[in-house]
């Protein structure tokens, strides 16, 4: 039986392991610098600290050995290398297994003996010279960019960030009359910046970052506590007694001897905010407070808020045409606050995509090692937020796409060199918000999708005609059909029969869409288009023979009224929209009602680049609804994607218009 405390430790340790892996991957990827090494060291220290207390002695031992090695790396006694990173990653897995109560003692002991071997090897080769080079040194970096520095094509924001990334630091912003963030978004800098930086990069490393700033826009001063009063410093700022004391304290706090302690304390203590009005001190490593809440509680909250949203529209519906201004005003307030409540409640569920990053990076590392390929993974927009449940559902499809990209897309280093490509394949993960959708793109610069191969395979499988020409779109569709896989050999990586069809199905399961574009020899792009939240939907309410149906508003392109005779006078069920013939479906007809309206309402729907029009009796209005999935039993009826409760308490089905055609 695990005690409550143990359970808590396990949860916490898993969090730490996750962060640890992330830092390790960053270290492995590029020279992430001192800070990341410090992080790794800190995580290991945390793991070790509480493991012993809760009786996880093997974990304590493993993390202790690792901590030892990383403290050497931190102090410059040892160079980090792939072996150590891999070993530590492996150790993280083993620790995770240990936490789950699995019997992996053998593996743990192997790690400990490996680490001991590493330790011995290093004690004989102390690298003293390098230690000299990598000495940490304090600097003051003064940045006085001209107001319009952005107009020169210089992103000052990223320069500032890069400087801060060089080491432990304090940023002091002077003349912050306009808030810093506003200055950045307006691209007009009116403040100047004083950074106290403790770094191993040296003066050249700092100047490297400032390459594009002119001589008069910056100054780098080597720091000792006395420097603050020197003429060099005075030409920028004359420090009063209190300000001087503060800078001295900062310097002391940041200097190498103090780092170890400062890393341990995760306090939020606000810095004594003297009498200055103009200077604001931003503590860099500040942590926002976090509490973890069970998902059940969260789901409950979301449910209640959803019901409240419905109840509010029901109330409005009941009130009808009330003219009393006080009531109308109260209703408006109620609406405003319900919507705000809804937004923040749903906001809680949003999680940045970053959480899957570690898994993806490890996958890429493993798969590329297994297949002997070299892959550089670049991410952008990992701060894009998505509903928690959606992120869970996304994990498997993303991993599958990446596996495919490395296996089928990216060539071996030799082949790439032959084709004048860099040895390292590029895999880019790109994510952004657009409207009420989130887009995720996975792009590789591999050989692209081989359409001839797909066609050949399709013919073999009897899915295609041998002598017919198929469009790329058709072949991509075929690629996503169940049981289709083009791998010549069945490897563990991809080509196990379950393939793109599963990805497509899983993405569709969260109301997302997938699109593929590819160019032979240049690579492919997989684009996932996902709704922002799973549960709230803006819809157009239409009625058909006394029943109401909902159409997601983002699919609606155009609505108009038309005489019945004009629509149904022709043989084919088609309208002309923007010069193109577009098929239409009369819902009265579709649901087996008599078609009698003299005037019809046509709604043009566009989804996945395909247009279809539906003909209904009329439009009732636009409402925001809470999406409820249909019961499993109704799944074969795929012309509806879900259901929702309307303001008057009745139920309405949400149309999946593209499915009406079949």
């Amino acid at each position: 039986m695990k005690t409550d405390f143990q359970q808590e430790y396990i949860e916490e340790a898993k969090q730490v392991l996750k962060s640890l892996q992330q830092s390790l991957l960053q270290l492995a990827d590029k020279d992430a610098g001192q800070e990341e090494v410090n992080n790794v060291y800190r995580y290991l220290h945390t793991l070790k600290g509480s493991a012993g207390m809760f009786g996880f002695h093997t974990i304590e031992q493993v993390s202790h050995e690792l901590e030892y090695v990383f403290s050497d790396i931190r102090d410059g006694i040892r160079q980090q290398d792939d072996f150590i990173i891999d070993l530590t990653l492996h150790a993280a897995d083993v620790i995770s297994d240990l936490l789950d109560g699995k019997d992996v003692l053998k593996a743990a002991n192997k790690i400990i003996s490996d680490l001991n071997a590493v330790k011995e090897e290093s004690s004989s080769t102390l690298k003293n010279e390098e230690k000299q080079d990598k000495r940490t040194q304090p600097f003051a970096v003064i940045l006085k960019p001209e107001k319009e520095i952005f107009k020169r094509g210089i992103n000052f924001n990223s320069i500032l960030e890069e400087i801060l990334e060089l080491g432990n630091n304090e940023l002091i912003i002077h003349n912050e009359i306009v808030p810093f963030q506003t200055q950045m978004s307006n691209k007009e800098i009116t403040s100047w910046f004083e950074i106290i930086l403790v770094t191993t990069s040296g003066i050249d490393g700092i100047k490297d970052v400032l390459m594009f700033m002119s001589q008069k826009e910056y100054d780098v001063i080597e720091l000792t506590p006395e420097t603050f009063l020197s003429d060099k410093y005075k030409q920028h700022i004359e420090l009063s007694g209190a300000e001087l004391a503060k800078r001295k304290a900062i310097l002391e706090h940041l200097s190498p001897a103090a780092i170890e302690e400062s890393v341990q304390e995760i306090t939020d203590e606000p810095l004594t905010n003297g009498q200055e009005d103009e200077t604001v001190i931003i503590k860099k490593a500040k942590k926002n407070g976090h509490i973890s809440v069970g998902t059940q509680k969260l789901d409950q909250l979301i449910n209640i808020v959803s019901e409240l949203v419905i109840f509010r529209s029901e109330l409005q519906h009941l009130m009808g045409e009330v003219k009393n201004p006080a009531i109308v005003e109260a209703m408006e307030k109620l609406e405003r606050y319900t919507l705000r409540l809804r937004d923040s409640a749903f906001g809680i569920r949003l999680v940045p995509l970053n959480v899957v990053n570690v898994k993806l990076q490890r996958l890429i590392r493993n798969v590329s090692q297994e297949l002997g390929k070299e892959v550089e993974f670049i991410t952008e927009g990992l701060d894009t937020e998505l509903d928690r449940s959606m992120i869970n559902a996304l994990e498997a499809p993303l991993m599958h796409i990446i596996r495919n990209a490395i296996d089928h897309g990216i060539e071996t280093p030799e082949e790439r060199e032959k084709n004048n490509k860099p040895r390292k394949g590029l895999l880019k993960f790109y994510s952004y918000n657009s409207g009420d959708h989130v887009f995720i793109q996975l792009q590789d610069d591999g050989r692209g999708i081989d359409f001839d191969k797909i066609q050949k395979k399709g013919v073999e499988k009897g899915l295609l005609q041998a002598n017919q020409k198929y469009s790329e779109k058709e072949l991509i569709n075929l690629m996503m059909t169940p049981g289709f896989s083009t791998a010549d050999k069945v490897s563990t990586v991809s080509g196990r029969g379950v393939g793109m069809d599963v990805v497509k199905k899983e993405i569709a399961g969260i109301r997302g869409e997938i699109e593929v574009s590819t160019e032979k020899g240049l690579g492919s792009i997989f684009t996932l288009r996902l709704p922002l939240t799973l549960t709230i939907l803006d819809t157009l309410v239409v009625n058909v023979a006394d029943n109401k149906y909902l159409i997601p508003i983002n699919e609606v392109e155009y609505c108009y009224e038309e005489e019945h005779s004009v629509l149904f006078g022709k043989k084919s069920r088609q309208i002309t929209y923007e010069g193109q013939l577009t098929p239409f479906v009369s819902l009265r007809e579709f649901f087996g009602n008599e078609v009698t309206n003299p005037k019809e309402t046509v709604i043009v729907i566009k989804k996945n680049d395909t247009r279809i029009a539906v003909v209904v009796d009329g439009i009732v209005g636009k409402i925001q609804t809470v999406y409820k999935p249909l019961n499993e039993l109704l799944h074969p009826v795929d012309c509806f994607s879900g259901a929702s409760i309307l303001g008057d308490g009745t139920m309405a089905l949400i149309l999946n218009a593209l499915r009406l055609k079949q």
Partner: protein
Amino acid sequence: MSKSIVVAEDFNVSRKIIVSTLAKEGYTVMEAVDGKEAVELFDGRKVDLLITDFNMPHMDGAELIQRVRSIKRYEYLPILLLTTEVREEKIQRALDGKITAFIKKPFETQDFVKIVKRALS
């Protein structure tokens, strides 16, 4: 997506050197022999960096830069200007505050790549 760079330089040899250097680094490079061609390259594409010579036929570097800057999405585009030592001062006056950096010709490939990387960061 690899970063796209437009290179405008009328002198064939140096343009080829620049293009091949950048291509080796994995960038997507589009080349133009003068400002006029370069402006066309900006049409309907995403460009992350412009590297241009100052003296070119048809449309010179100064006008090219002015045209590009007047496009809303390229208001803050990093721009590197290739110059020879002699002209630098005159050009500096003309383009002050509009470009990211000057690159003196001839240059060391290593330094050049370093500058480009920084401009794209």
